[in-house]
């Protein structure tokens, strides 16, 4: 094993100074000659057909080069897709059909951004509107089993018999709304042709993967496509796929034979890029009087678009968090005329854990048991559904350490017992897990003659500190100081690599870098010659024994509630995390705190509001779609318990998403503790609390 010198050391981001001084470049910042700008026109109806697009009305406007719509757009390959198969969401400007409000119907290309926007705002588009259906409910007539791409249905034990034998049963239903990734940096792409080769600079979470999708979509060989990223201002899942900005910029570059930049406006980010689907989640829990679970039934429904298959895997934590002789899970999909949903911040687990951990709190209440103790009594020895051993399971350490730091032991578990003036005060907690692992990646390391090492991998840094983390990992893998590491990332040409997503970016990239370093160190070396080693981890990953591999967390919170106004404010938030070896305690802490704030937003603020009359999103901006403001973010603390993932280099687990998961349930449980009223529907708005 390698010695750990740089890993585990708190270091500020390598690019920190560039970012705070404005020198760091994002996707829309690269100066280019002969650059044209595309402005997107989106549909204002939720379903129907385009009757007419009056291109002549804008052709003569200043600077306008032309308009692309379904009549002249390059034909796209309908087989192109993402992880879940062909994705109709990619098929922009291919026909006159409007499948949802906010679908791109045209791209206006002009010499300047302002000219493109002015013409796009003017372009007359008329529709033959058809009745739409955007009303999500679990018992919708079109509801069908979700595709078992992952988080498939499970049914162990005799559920009904165990429920019948239970001393206490919780049977409740939980709801979460549409939520939007809404990263600070809007989606932007610039595309141009160099001879027969398509070049793009795009804001995304994985240039290699996105280049493969783009190549398929435009029926190009992979070697004909190069996608690069610059600094990325957040993705949260919405930049995990080939985005509309890249598809449309490529069309513009293809038709006008010059570089075209497409940057989505803020409302278009809401209307066109991935959102988390609304969910409705019935849960039944059965337990003995001493709190031992007999039965867990979790059968969520989520909405999707007929354009693209997707799974909001809400039951992933349900299958692994607690032991029970009977566990049944099943996901239901409800196709509607909506933007195709996709992975967002702790996909599945975030809404799923809200339901599961709220139900656990309700169970503790009905048992008259400490909610913390209820979790401890149901700690499984092996995977409750899979029967597989756990690789490393430190949930109990998170629970105990968190409880001690928070001062949980003195809690009076009865609701509505603490008042401070006109405020009710409550505390709550939740536990959770998020699956971890790695995907195949390729890394190259070159030993340079000047004593430095060039480390190459098609990773991307969403702002989380990936550059800094990978530099530390490479340094320890090579047994050198970080000053001797030169890292190159953010380019599809650097070889296959997993994206910054699924809490698997750092682990996947670290694995390839570590293996390349090991092979390089094993080689006889002549310091006067450059030596390069390239490693593909596909086989190594195949050899990894199948186990239950998860990160864990326990979240504790204190809230105040003004029952006269319904105002809920979070006063304290504490998260304890088991995320394997922490590569950089400074940036890892930032990341999980950011996740917890995302969870706070999910609990109290975030909601994509849809007008059912028009089927349209009516709060598609930051004035209407609230995320936590500074004043909403309380005394917040996050720390890590000792943890190490066996079988993975340096014992790393992903920390990207677990911060988000669990917080919403902890806050909902605290609101119950304060008020005595359960909150089974997110967000916990004023009108749901006011008395």
């Amino acid at each position, binding site marked *: 094993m390698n010695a750990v010198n740089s890993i585990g050391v708190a270091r500020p981001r390598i690019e920190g100074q560039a970012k705070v001084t404005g020198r760091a470049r994002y996707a829309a910042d690269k100066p280019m000659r002969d650059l044209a700008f595309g402005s997107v026109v989106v549909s204002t109806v939720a379903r129907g057909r385009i009757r007419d697009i009056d291109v002549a009305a804008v052709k003569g406007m200043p600077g306008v080069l032309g308009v692309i719509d379904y009549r002249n757009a390059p034909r796209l390959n309908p087989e192109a897709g993402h992880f879940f198969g062909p994705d109709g969401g990619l098929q922009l400007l291919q026909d006159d059909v409007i499948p949802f409000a906010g679908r791109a119907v045209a791209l206006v290309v002009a010499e300047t951004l302002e000219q493109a926007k002015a013409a796009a705002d003017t372009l007359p588009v008329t529709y033959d509107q058809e009745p739409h259906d955007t009303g999500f409910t679990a018992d919708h007539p079109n509801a069908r089993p979700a595709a078992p791409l992952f988080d498939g249905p499970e049914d162990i034990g005799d559920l009904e018999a165990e429920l019948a034998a239970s001393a206490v049963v919780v049977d409740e239903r939980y709801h979460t709304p549409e939520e939007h990734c809404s990263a600070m940096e809007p989606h932007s792409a610039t595309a141009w042709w160099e001879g027969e080769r398509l070049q793009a600079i795009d804001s995304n979470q994985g240039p290699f993967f996105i280049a493969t999708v783009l190549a398929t979509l435009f029926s190009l060989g992979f070697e004909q496509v190069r996608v690069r990223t610059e600094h990325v201002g957040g993705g949260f899942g919405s930049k995990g796929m080939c985005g509309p900005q890249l598809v449309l910029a490529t069309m513009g570059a293809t038709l006008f034979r010059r570089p075209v930049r497409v940057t989505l406006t803020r409302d278009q980010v809401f209307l066109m890029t991935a959102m988390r689907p609304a969910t409705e989640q019935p849960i039944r829990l059965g337990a003995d009087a001493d709190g031992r679970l007999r039965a867990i039934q979790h059968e969520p429904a989520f909405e999707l678009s007929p354009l693209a298959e997707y799974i909001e895997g809400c039951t992933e934590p349900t299958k692994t968090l607690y032991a029970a002789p009977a566990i049944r899970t099943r996901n239901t999909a409800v196709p509607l005329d909506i933007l195709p949903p996709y992975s967002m911040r702790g996909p599945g687990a975030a809404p799923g854990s809200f339901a599961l951990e709220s139900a656990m709190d309700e169970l503790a209440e009905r048992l008259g048991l400490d909610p913390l103790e209820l979790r401890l009594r149901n700690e499984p020895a092996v995977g409750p559904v899979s029967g597989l051993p756990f690789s490393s399971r430190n949930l109990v350490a998170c629970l105990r350490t968190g409880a001690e730091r928070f001062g949980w032991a003195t809690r009076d578990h009865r609701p509505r017992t603490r008042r401070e003036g006109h405020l009710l005060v409550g505390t709550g907690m939740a536990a959770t897990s998020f699956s971890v692992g790695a995907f195949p990646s390729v890394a190259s390391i070159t030993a340079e003659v000047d004593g430095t090492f060039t480390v190459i991998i098609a990773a991307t840094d969403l702002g989380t500190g990936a550059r800094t983390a990978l530099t530390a990992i490479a340094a320890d893998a090579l047994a050198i100081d970080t000053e001797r590491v030169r890292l190159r990332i953010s380019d599809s040409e650097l070889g296959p690599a997993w994206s910054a997503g699924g809490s698997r970016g750092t682990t996947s990239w670290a694995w390839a870098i570590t293996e390349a370093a090991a092979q390089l160190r094993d080689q006889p070396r002549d310091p006067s010659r450059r030596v390069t080693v390239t490693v593909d981890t596909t086989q190594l990953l195949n050899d990894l024994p199948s186990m239950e591999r998860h990160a864990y967390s326990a979240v504790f919170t204190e809230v105040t509630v003004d029952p006269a106004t319904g105002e809920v404010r979070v006063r304290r938030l504490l998260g304890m995390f088991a995320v394997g070896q922490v590569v950089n305690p400074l940036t890892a802490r930032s990341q999980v705190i950011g996740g917890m704030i995302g969870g706070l937003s999910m609990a109290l603020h975030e909601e994509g509001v849809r007008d059912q009359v028009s089927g349209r999103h009516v*709060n598609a*901006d930051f004035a209407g779609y609230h995320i936590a403001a500074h*004043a909403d973010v309380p005394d917040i603390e996050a720390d890590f318990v000792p943890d190490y993932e066996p079988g993975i280099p340096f014992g790393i687990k992903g920390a990207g998403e677990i911060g988000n998961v669990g917080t919403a349930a902890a806050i909902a449980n605290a609101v119950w503790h304060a008020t005595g009223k359960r909150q089974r529907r997110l967000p916990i708005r004023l009108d749901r609390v006011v008395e």
Partner: protein
Amino acid sequence: MKEFAYRRATEVRDALTLVAAGDGARYLGGGTNLVDLMKTGVEAPARLVDVRFLPLDGVREAADGGLVIGATTTNSDAAAHPEVRRRYPALSEAILAGASGQLRNMATVGGNLLQRTRCGYFADPSQACNKRVPGSGCAAIAGEHHNHAVLGWSRHCAATHASDMAVAMAAFDAVVHYETLDGPGELPLAEFYPPVGDTPDRETALPPGALITAIALPGSAVSPRSRYRKVRERASYAFATVSIAADLDVRTGSARIALGGVASRPWRARRAEAVLREGPLTADRFRAAADAELSAAEPLPGNGYKVTLARNLIVAVLTELADRAPA
């Protein structure tokens, strides 16, 4: 964004003439609302006449013991002014409850009175909105109206007024002073915002082309114990769900109460004030006052909670003011 001409006025008369001359000319204050709406196409003036450099800045003493706040005084300066804070604390609190520090540094007091509603349908030119395009309909009443009015709305429009500052000014019986080419005029705040009726696009009673020059706070309204409380979905940087500016004289039962977030204009709660004048200020009377005011409420299917919230808020703030009063 439509192209527009820009002129900076240096004298009030210049500004009036420039706006009177061109159709589609508008005054530009801090631009914190107007420019946003121009970017989205909701507003498309052909010309902006910048009035920020007119000599209308600052807070001065009025002969009646009140204050006169110049129209181009920034929200930040008005809120921070020692005499505003001492005599009209609810006004200072209201201004500070709005927007962000950066916006308050730009926004002017005159412009604040004229800000437009934050109804999502108003903000989206592709939606039906009688306020934006008279006669086009109101998509909010049948659609999403969680944040809309419960008092004084009409079937033509249920949008709320967005200003916090104007709510406090309504409670303090402020008077808006303006200039026109025909001479000066004034409007009490109670008359400044007409009822919605069938003209939701007509948001003020100002004559065409009028320029607000100052807002006078009467000496009779000086209230060192007045209070502004704003309820909103997050702790800062959000418009009021319901807000209240209130002042209570516990000896006489004389109260001035205005509500925000419930109507197309700051809602002066005169029914509640009348109930408070009738008798001893007990908890029951506070509840009766709140009930009297909200008895006129007509919530939409999706915003009935605002009635509960407004009632609770009136009672809570009156109770607080009574508790704080010197014995």
